[in-house]
């Protein structure tokens, strides 16, 4: 263990750690964007029941759900370069940040796809029929009628997932990414005040989570305006 506890160091460390917050947020935003794309693509074969693709997507989702994110990170970090080497692509000089974003993107994408799939099937079939009945094409009916409502239904789960992945980004330092936690690790080693570092980190992660939650809940209220039971104006 380190030296005796010094509360002042906690405040000392805060700004030093905060200067790496953007790396943490970069991982999160990058992963969420990849995740949305991947999640959407993985959800489609299961919504439309496309053979083969449907099975592949189910296996992908079940694998991600059944393995720890840290193991996924190692698999991508050590496995992807080996895989790419066989097709003559050298990625040994690629930043580990890229591996982290890819891993988290695919990991979050699998869970997004489940959320999207459930949300799409939660929009009642009658509205699709009504869209067909007024002569809309299946694509127009999906994009204009089903999707906007599915996104609203999916939103609370989506928000929870983003927040939980924000915390999981702290694992990135295991493959040498200098994010907030990584910086904390070096600070701790240099000063031998690990507890103070972790308290500072806890404060920052907690504050960011609270902030995100607030933003999401504001957005949610806005998206759900059509569910309000009481008249807006009369």
């Amino acid at each position: 263990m380190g030296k005796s506890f010094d509360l002042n160091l906690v405040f000392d460390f805060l700004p030093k750690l905060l200067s790496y917050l953007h790396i943490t947020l970069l991982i999160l935003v990058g992963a969420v964007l990849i995740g949305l794309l991947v999640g959407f693509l993985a959800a489609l074969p299961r919504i439309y029941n496309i053979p083969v693709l449907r099975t592949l997507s189910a296996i992908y989702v079940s694998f991600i759900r059944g393995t720890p994110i840290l193991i996924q990170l190692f698999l991508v970090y050590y496995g992807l370069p080996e895989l790419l080497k066989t097709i003559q692509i050298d990625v040994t000089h690629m930043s580990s940040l890229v591996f982290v974003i890819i891993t988290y993107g695919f990991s979050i994408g699998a869970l997004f796809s489940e959320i999207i799939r459930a949300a799409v099937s939660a929009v009642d079939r009658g509205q699709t029929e009504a869209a067909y009945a007024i002569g809309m094409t299946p694509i127009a009916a999906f994009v204009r009628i089903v999707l906007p409502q599915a996104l609203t239904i999916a939103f609370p789960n989506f928000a929870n997932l983003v927040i939980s992945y924000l915390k999981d980004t702290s694992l990135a330092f295991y493959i040498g990414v200098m994010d907030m936690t990584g910086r904390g690790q070096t600070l701790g080693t240099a000063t031998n005040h690990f507890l103070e570092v972790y308290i500072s980190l806890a404060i920052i992660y907690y504050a960011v989570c609270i902030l995100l939650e607030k933003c999401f809940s504001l957005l949610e209220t806005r998206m759900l305006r059509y569910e309000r039971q009481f008249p807006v104006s009369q």
Partner: protein
Amino acid sequence: MIRLKNIKKSFGKQMVLKGIDLTVEKGEVVVILGPSGSGKTTLLRCINFLERADSGAITIGDLSVDCHRATKKEILALRRKTAMVFQHYNLFKHKTVLENVMEGLVVVQKWPVERAKERSLQILEKVGLSQQIDMYPSQLSGGQQQRVGIARALALNPEVILFDEPTSALDPELVGEVLSVIQKIAREGITMIVVTHEMGFARDISDHVVFMDNGVVVEEGKPNEIFHAPKEERTKQFLKRITPEWRYSI
């Protein structure tokens, strides 16, 4: 004019429609009666291909479609000549009353937004919802929602409007407002095919009545003939069961 020829439809081994023929003249209001499970709703849904009939042919105006071979393009063209009012309204929940009515005009018929809005406002006035145009479906009563459903269908100026038990999901005290709106537009000469259990309404509104049972048309004719002098035993039984008070009024 609408012509259905030998429409057949099975769900699994169950044959729901056993060869239905039906002709509806322009401006005519046809009411389809029959016990539940007789296939009336399925027949209606086959007309706009929400269900695809196994065989038969559908003609609406100048467009003839073979049910079995119909292409996506033909189905779309057919749907654009028809409109439907659903039992459970099926309004677009994330859109306001006005947007629900405009949707088809703007997205399907490619009207400019301003013109679509103008027409939608007119139609909404006709169904008595001018005060509710900015509300969402969740804020309306069942009767109001169904009137939006009717306005949405009416806005498209279709060759025929299909009504699938439009008042079955409504509280009894809300049925009247919906029926009177349907009656009002029937008088304007819009072609309609109506599946309903409201016998008094059916008698008042229809030019032609079709009685279906067990996937076949048992009897059809003028409302007076069907309601007051049915020829078939099954029709008599059905009418007796569903309107017991008539035993005294005949």
